């Protein structure tokens, strides 16, 4: 799977200690925030039109999550598990290849 975090995302696990003994002695980090799927915050979802994409990677550069990754063919794609739908990518895209679409279930 060629997503932004690939293996790290697959290996991310929720950590919930059951007893006091399972807690570490010092407040150290045990896992990554990749377990936290922030995609459900979203109201509008960005959709990429590959026919308009000129591969400038400005959206990749300005994604604060980061949820935009580059595919093998050079086009960009969005990891909807993490995209919060802020819309910076659609606003900054020079060719307007990204549009924000209201997400409905």
């Amino acid at each position: 799977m060629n997503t932004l975090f690939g293996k790290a995302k697959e290996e991310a696990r929720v950590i919930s200690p059951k007893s006091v003994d399972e807690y570490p002695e010092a407040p150290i980090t045990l896992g990554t925030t990749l377990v936290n799927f922030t995609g459900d915050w979203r109201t509008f979802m960005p959709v990429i039109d590959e026919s308009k994409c000129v591969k400038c990677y400005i959206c990749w550069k300005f994604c604060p999550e980061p949820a935009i990754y580059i595919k093998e063919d050079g086009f960009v794609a969005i990891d909807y598990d993490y995209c919060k739908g802020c819309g910076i990518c659609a606003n900054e895209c020079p060719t307007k290849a990204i549009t924000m679409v209201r997400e409905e279930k």
Partner: protein
Amino acid sequence: MEVPEDVKRRLTLPFEENFFAGHTACQGCGASLGLRYVLKAYGRKTILVIPACCSTIIAGPWPYSALNANLFHTAFETTGAVISGIEAALKALGYKVKGEDGIMVVGWAGDGGTADIGLQALSGFLERGHDALYIMYDNEAYMNTGIQRSSSTPYGAWTTNTPGGKRHFLEKRHKKKVIDIVIAHRIPYAATASVAYPEDFLRKLKKAQKIPGPSFIQLFAPCPTGWRAPTDKTIEIARLAVQTAYFPLFEYENGKYKINMPNPKKEPKPIEEFLKLQGRFKYMTKEDIEVLQKWVLEEWERLKKLAEVFG
């Protein structure tokens, strides 16, 4: 990850990603973007010191972390003291600090933790001359606790304790120029940067890594939640702040000023263009806007003169 080499060569920022998604910053957060750029520049060989600010939340609740680097949470006023201590300890243990392959000790504090609460620790750190970097990400109020004014809040801005209206005042004091206080210490390197110009920010981060001694970067990081702005306008607002000369980009290196504006010959745009995108400025009257515009242009002329005399 299989990304073709020719694509990697076309990227203007390093490809390596050390900032994990799933962090709990608001939508369109400028500060999280800044953290991502810092980790892109320095990689895993970084010790970040974060006081109480939005970034405490962004870096993740225990036991998770959004940063693929070392992180030290500390009290609000102690960022400068803690980076001094970590740097001194690393040197005593024989590690290489700063320089091309050294460990970077980075203090990452908000404007409240720098301009108000952490000012004496920052001054002590700069005066003692430790080999570390202090980054102040400037979102112009105490955003984490609910948009209270800080000394970095600009004139005419709405915050929860300058709410405006008939019985209250809007913010009537100008933004504190922390960068001038820092330059008064005559440190080797100080600069301002903006999240809208990441290439410029990364160049400054690399420069701060190379130059020995204390360095300081003030990063303009818009906060859509606190500035009452649409989440997709973060970069646009940051870009307009530079283009209107409200937040000019410059660097101070060994006594020399250098302005790094994207179009140095161009006259600054009117300040209204920057103000109209943000809800926090909508209570300003015409006179208020004139006062702010006058202040912005005065500061800009002052900076141009400094660059002329000490260029």
